[in-house]
Structure formats: C-alpha cells, structure tokens
C-alpha cells in the first residue's frame, strides 16, 4: 500500500519543483533589471559597470543642471497629464455604454476602442502624421495629446468596464426609485463604486502616455522633445551615467506611484 502512495507524492513534488524553478527564474528575470537600474543610478564612478564600485548621489545632483532632460521630462508630464484627463472623461463615458448596452453598434465600438492595443502603434503614429499633414496641419501639442489618447484610452476602458460589470444593478434601481436622477445616481452611487477601476485605468494610461515612443516620434513638433525619446537617443549615442540617474528616478517614482495605487485603488486586483 505504501509504494503507490510515495509514487504519487514524488510526482506531485516533481511538478512543484519544475514549476517552482521556472517561476523562480522568471521572477528573477522580471525583477532583476529594476534592481540593476536602481543600484547603477547610485554609482560613484563614471562607468555603468554593475555592481557599482561605490555609492553616491552625484549623478542625481548632475540632473539639476541637465536642462534638456528637464525640459523633455516636463513636456512628457504635461502630455501625460492631458492624455489622462481626456482618456478618463471619454473612456468612463464610453464604459458606461459598453457595460450596459447590448446594441451591436456599441459592441463594435468596443472592439474598435481596444484595437490600438493590438495594432502596431508605430504604424498608427505614421498614419496620423500622414493624415494631419494631408489636412494641412502640422504636428502640435493638441495632436500629440489626442494621438496619445487613442493608444492610452483602452487601459481606462478595460478597468472601468470591468468594475461596472461587477456593479449590482439593484443599487442603481434603488437610487432611482428613491428619486435620484441619472446624473445624481452616477455621482453618488456609480462613481464611488467604480472609482478604484477608473483610478487604476487612469494610472495605467498616465504611465503608458509618459512612456510612449512610437506615437510621439511622429506627432511631436520639432521644438518639443519627449523624455523617452530623449533618453532613447542618449542610450543609442553616448551612454552617460546621467541616463542611469534619470532611469533610477523614473523607476523609484513608478514604484512609489504603484504602491500608492495599490493602497488607494487595489491596483493588483484591478488589472486582473
């Protein structure tokens, strides 16, 4: 009787070991680069060797004089800010329709709104540039923000629609039978309940916009340089340690924002 029992246990164990090892390698693989960036950014030397030979904040101080980088960071923040605002307003409105309507037009619109996630963003950026120059316009902040909205709004739609479908319709009926109008019900019942979904979507959209290269490459005007593009060119041409400091700063700010999003909106539950 004992023999088959152990055989099963060994089998169970082997699966756990194989999956455990694969998952462990994958987790090191996933988290490793982030740690490398943070540590490298505190290096005391002139080189990007890892591990750094000494720790210092000198490259962070050097950022204070990096005018070009500061301008690029500022431009990216402004674009990401407006992109997020527009994505949240238009995206939440559209989500209300998508979650509640079964009309085939709304279904088709849903597929359309999600398609920028799948199609090559670079092809879209090029198409948008071709289109606006055919219309007689030239790239500008407005077009850049609207182009970002197209590729960032899917994030808001996904998390918001998901929270809306979990919303108990009886709550809306109750609100309305107690005499609240549509707007009142939305403000006092729907919005507070879907707020974590909207907030998570807004966070994802902000990060996606701040990080966007393919659309910005085509739609930003010649005077404005966006931070990811500036960094990209730095990395491609003369890799200096200030790049590491900006990267470290971005990673640390992202981590802090993620922790806040997790505390306030349960980010890790919203993205599933």
């Amino acid at each position, binding site marked *: 009787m004992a023999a088959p029992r152990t055989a099963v246990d060994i089998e169970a164990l082997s699966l756990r070991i194989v*999956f455990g090892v694969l998952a462990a390698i994958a987790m090191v693989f996933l988290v490793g680069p*982030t740690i490398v*960036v943070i540590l490298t950014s505190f290096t005391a030397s002139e080189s990007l060797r890892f591990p750094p030979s000494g720790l210092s904040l000198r490259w962070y101080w050097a950022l204070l004089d990096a005018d070009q980088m500061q301008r690029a960071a500022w431009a990216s923040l402004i674009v990401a800010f407006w992109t997020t605002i527009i994505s949240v307003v238009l995206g939440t*409105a559209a989500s209300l329709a*998508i979650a509640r309507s079964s009309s085939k037009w709304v279904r088709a619109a849903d597929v359309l709104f999600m398609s920028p996630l799948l199609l090559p963003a670079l092809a879209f950026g090029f198409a948008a540039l071709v289109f606006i120059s055919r219309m007689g316009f030239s790239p500008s902040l407005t077009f850049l923000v609207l182009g970002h909205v197209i590729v960032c709004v899917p994030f808001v739609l996904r998390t918001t629609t998901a929270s809306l479908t979990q919303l108990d319709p009886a709550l809306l009926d109750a609100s309305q039978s107690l005499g609240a109008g549509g707007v009142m019900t939305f403000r006092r019942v729907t919005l507070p309940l879907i707020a974590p979904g909207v907030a998570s979507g807004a966070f994802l959209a902000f990060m996606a916009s701040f990080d966007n*290269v393919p659309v910005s490459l085509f739609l930003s005007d010649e005077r404005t340089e966006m931070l990811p593009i500036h960094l990209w060119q730095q990395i*491609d041409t003369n890799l200096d340690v200030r*790049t590491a400091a900006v990267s470290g700063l971005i990673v640390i700010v992202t981590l802090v924002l993620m922790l806040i999003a997790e505390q306030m909106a349960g980010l890790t539950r919203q993205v599933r």
Partner: protein
Amino acid sequence: MTKDDSPLVLPLAALFVALFIAPLCVLVALSLAKDANIASFTAASYVKFFTDSFNYSILFETLLLGLKATLVCLVFGYPIAWICARSSARLQSIIVFLVILPILTSVVVRTFAWIVILGRQGVINQVWTSFGFEPLRLLYTEAGVVMVLAQVQMPLMVLPILTVLGKMDPNLGDASRVLGAGEWRTLWRVTIPLSLPGVIAGCILTYTACITAFVTQTLIGGARLIYMPLNIYQQAIGANNWPFAAALSVIFMVAVLVIVGVLNAVGRRSETYGRA
C-alpha cells in the same frame, strides 16, 4: 427603468473616427499612391515588397521573433500564474505587483537596464568570464532581443492566465486526483485545457506586443537586426519614401490582424472544449 446609455459612447467614437479610422484610410490610400500627394494610384509599393526578398524576409523574421518570445513567455509565465493562483490573497498581490512592475516602468528604462546586464562588460559577462570563458555576444543578437522582449511582455501572458486559473473550480483538480490521475496528468488533461482561453488571450497580447516593440527591438537589436517597425520608420523618416512606408504599415497590420484572427478562432474553439 434604466434608460439607454448607448449615446455615451459617441464622444470617444467621434475621436476614433477622426483620428484613428480616417488616418488608417489615408494610410491605405497612400500605400497605393505614386507619391506623397496621393494624386495617382499604382500598386508599385506592394509589387516592390513582394518581389524583394530583403523586405519580405524582414516581415518573416519579425513574425518569427514574436513566436519565439511568446513561447518563452508561455513556458515561464504559466508556472507563475499556476503558483500565484494557489497562493494566499496577500502573496497573490505581491506576485502580481512584481509581475506588472516591468510593464509600468518606462520601456526605455527597462531596455537601458538590459544594456547594463547584457553588454560586453555587463553582469552576465562578468560572471561568465570569471569562469575563464570568452565574453558572450548578447547585445545586438536575436537571442538578446528575444530575452528582453520576454521580460518586458511577460505580464501580458501571466495576467490573462491567472484570471482563468483563479476562476477555475478547484474541485475539478481534486476530482481528477481522486479518480487516480497524478499531478502531471491532471495538469495536462484538466488544468491546461481549461485554462486555454487565458493562454490564447495571453498569447495574442504578448505576440502583438513583441512584434511591434519598436524601442526594445532597435535598442537591443541594434542597427543590423531590422524588424518591421524599424523598417517602417526608416522608410518614413530616413528615406522619406512615404508610399512605401505606408505599404509596409498596411502589410504589417494585415499580418497582425490575420494572426490575431486565427488565434481568436482557436480561442473560441478552446472555450467550447472547456465547456464540453
């Protein structure tokens, strides 16, 4: 007594018509045009693409690159989702947090980290040469690109699988074991078939993200490894050949749509299989 909310979709729909559908239509027109003025039409750009082996081999290499990176994501991502689905709620949050960390960190920054890791004097080569081996060439190679793409896009594979595994009735696994199937058999015959919709969704997202990952492909692949996004960019900006860049974009998008369509069809079949 709920009123119809459908009109709320209109503002976003208007934006998409004006700045997504219209540009794509103009792109198709441009791809068939003689020059950037779109005055007279010709199929020359498409003929050029399909008769020039340099160009269609780039498309082929790009589609193959996506396949390799997606397989790496699947092999490493499935175990993460499997273990995560069996963990406590708290541990689940931590795992998901670590999994989405790379996708939220700026892609340029992530790629920069990999340059520090993969470079000639990078972390991997320091360990490797300390054993007395010759330094490995990792940057500017396809293996390097696959590795970095897999890290960057892994969350897109893990999250959909996790969603499906989390909803799966744990009794099914128990039933399989009670009926005498071992753990591996339960995995192959019960868990994996039932999680196929999540696997397919993960593959679609990972694959499309990998083949269109312009920044990662160019920074890790360098100038000699050319994939479709860089090819489009070079034709549009470098060579200023707009009709050809448009044709490349259209061909690339059609290829992506065909692959997504096929995977979706497989996904729908796998859902009916799961229910049966």
